[in-house]
């Protein structure tokens, strides 16, 4: 087992509009991409983000060696309960996942 963040060059999270969060896992090589694409369970990512499975989108993009997840934002951007206006910190939760 390794931390995801230790085997990939970059995990990025951003807003995709005020209502969505999108997480891009840049794997760098096809070998790491294969490992992440096969080893990272969608359910585990949902659990870490406490996100709703119904609206989740997952894209495994071999041409870019990227695995991408989009989920409704845990809190709508800028609401009183939101803690991160640009949504960039959620990447840390995914980078700290074991794979």
């Amino acid at each position, binding site marked *: 087992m390794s931390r995801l963040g230790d085997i990939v060059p970059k995990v990025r999270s951003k807003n995709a509009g005020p*209502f969505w969060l*999108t997480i891009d896992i840049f794997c760098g090589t096809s070998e790491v991409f294969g490992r992440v694409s096969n080893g990272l369970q969608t359910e585990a990512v949902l659990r870490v983000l406490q996100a709703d499975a119904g609206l989740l*989108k997952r894209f495994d*993009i071999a*041409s870019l060696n990227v695995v991408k997840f989009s989920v409704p934002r845990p809190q709508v951007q800028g609401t*009183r309960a939101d803690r991160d206006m640009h949504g960039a910190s959620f990447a840390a939760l995914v980078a700290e996942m074991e794979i």
Partner: protein
Amino acid sequence: MVKVLIPSGALGLGYDRAALAAGIAEGPDIIAIDGGSTDSGPHYLGTGTSKYSRNSTKAEWRELMAARAEAGVPLLIGTAGTCGADTAVDWLVDITREIAAETGETLKVAILKSGQPAARIAHALGAGRVTPLPPVPEISPEILESCTNIVALAGAEHIQGALETGADIVIAGRTTDTAIISALPLARGCNPGGAWHGAKIGECGALSTTSPNSGTILIEFDTEGFTITPMGAEARATPHTVSAHMLYENSDPYILFEPGGHLDVTDAVYTALDDRRVRVTGSRWVPSGRYTVKLEGARKVGYQTVSLALVRDRRYVENIRQWCDDILAKASAKARERAGDGFEIELRLIGVDATLGALDTAAQSGTEVGVLGIVTAQTEAMAREVAKILNPYLLHHPLTEQEEMPTFAFPFSPPEMNRGVVYEFCLNHVLEIDDPWDAFTLETVEIRA
């Protein structure tokens, strides 16, 4: 062939001057720049104001106006003043007048406004012409009425209308990020899939290249697709940097919805022409039977006052949650007793889990913790009152009754800071209209020195 020069990802963000000059030397047909997005939060749409400094905006706009005069082509900005509300458009028009007065220019300016009266949207809601997008926020005529600003995102048709006036400068309110770039190529018969795809790749300036800070890129559109050329001396576009940009702030990297249809890049082919230019073909535009524009709205939900206390005592740091829970209970009870109901107090632990809250199950604390007290209330006076009731606890609250009164660090006097009105986004909907001009207005003005 249509050449669109994009100076940077947003006015106010800065760009490399040499890259802009190189772009002008390429003889563009238009200079197009984005003025904003929702990414900085609901305050800007709520207030109808810009997030960037007026001086920075004026300095960069002056340079772009000079570039326009040199190139002799239209200069176009979309989503003026961060949020694209009507007041933000007026703000940039005022800045334009000031610059023209200083430089002695006479200019024809087309002004496109995207602001929506709440009554119009409420009427459309009743007529079944406002459709929610997932995830669906609650909406009602009352919520619409409570919005301080509602805008609709203009599409390529609106920008084309503004360009057809023959204006030197187009200042547009809220538009899609892409419409300002795709409009002219579409009007001149370029490949529609290529026009929208190139617009998406170009909307953040040089972010789709190896040197994001160089800002300026040139996109050449034609009947088959588009070619992107970075203008920064060191910047390179590669099939990887260009195709990876479809991931950026997009929930779906293949599909992009626009007024009147959607872009599908599933079959796009990215080819390196040399070590710095990329050609893209195979992108598809899929027209829709309906013309819909996305809506954004922000409404006032209360007032906030925040206080910050710093805790450096080891025993308190180790027991910080217990300390905060106790403060929250006692301060809330006292505030209800003395100031009345209608407020919320939240304490966030900076240095523990302030960023991610309950999601951060692995959070650990260090030698100190910042305690950020956030009071939200229905009036400004109430928010301040409750913060003033909270402050003595943040300063002196003991963990146990059997100890001397402790004192913690306040970095400021007074410790409470008034944040003013709090706004929230409340629309994730599209509005269906019969004619693109049903919800937008266009006027032209002549600005004389």
